[in-house]
């Protein structure tokens, strides 16, 4: 398997086929003598902006502390939760439990549902 071609930037779906963002980054554990391994998938947070420039990541982190669900650290999903890697990456998790949908739920609750006709997110 090739990590950049097959995993990075791919769409993530949970066990109910709910879309939960894209793979923003990958945590790699390295040691002096041991074989490196990919331990976590990263979603959101400053991971994405760091790939462009650290300054953009700092600005994005500052903005997210003022507004929104106040999460600036990316969501970390253990690699052991990866069920399959195909056109999308399927995970054995529930999207809402991971925190990957925090922003989506925050925008729905604080903005969209306050406008007439916006509908309502399902309550869990």
């Amino acid at each position, binding site marked *: 398997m090739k990590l950049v071609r097959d995993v990075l930037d791919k769409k993530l779906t949970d066990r109910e086929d709910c879309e939960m963002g894209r793979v923003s980054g990958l945590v790699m554990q*390295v040691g002096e003598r041991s074989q490196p391994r990919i331990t976590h998938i990263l979603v959101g947070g400053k991971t994405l902006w760091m790939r462009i420039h650290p300054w953009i990541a700092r600005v994005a982190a500052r903005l997210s502390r003022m507004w929104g669900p106040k999460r600036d650290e990316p969501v970390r999903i253990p690699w052991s939760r990866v069920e399959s890697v195909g056109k999308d990456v399927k995970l054995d998790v529930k999207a809402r439990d991971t925190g990957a949908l925090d922003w989506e739920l925050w925008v729905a609750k604080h903005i969209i549902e306050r406008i007439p006709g916006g509908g309502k997110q399902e309550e869990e």
Partner: protein
Amino acid sequence: MKEINAELLIGRKVCDANGEKVGRIEEFRVTNTEKACLVEGYLVGTSALVDRLSAWTLIRPIDKALRGRVFSVYEIPWEQMDLSDPKHPKLRIPKSELRHSK
């Protein structure tokens, strides 16, 4: 053991043990087992970039015309890559000891 962001290694220049430039990291070859996702090697060079973009249909005629001189790739086994400074990855061996992948 330390944690680094694999996505930030993409595009980083790799030098060999003597400081000679080898190429840029474009891809990671991994083995996904039940227990873990292990990194087997790093693909370095323009050919690796073409591979990553699945662009051989377009590039192959150009590669043939240039007699395979421009597009090259090295596969660096994990044990030969020193990532103690992730911003400056380097080989533990000289470039001459590396095998061309293509």
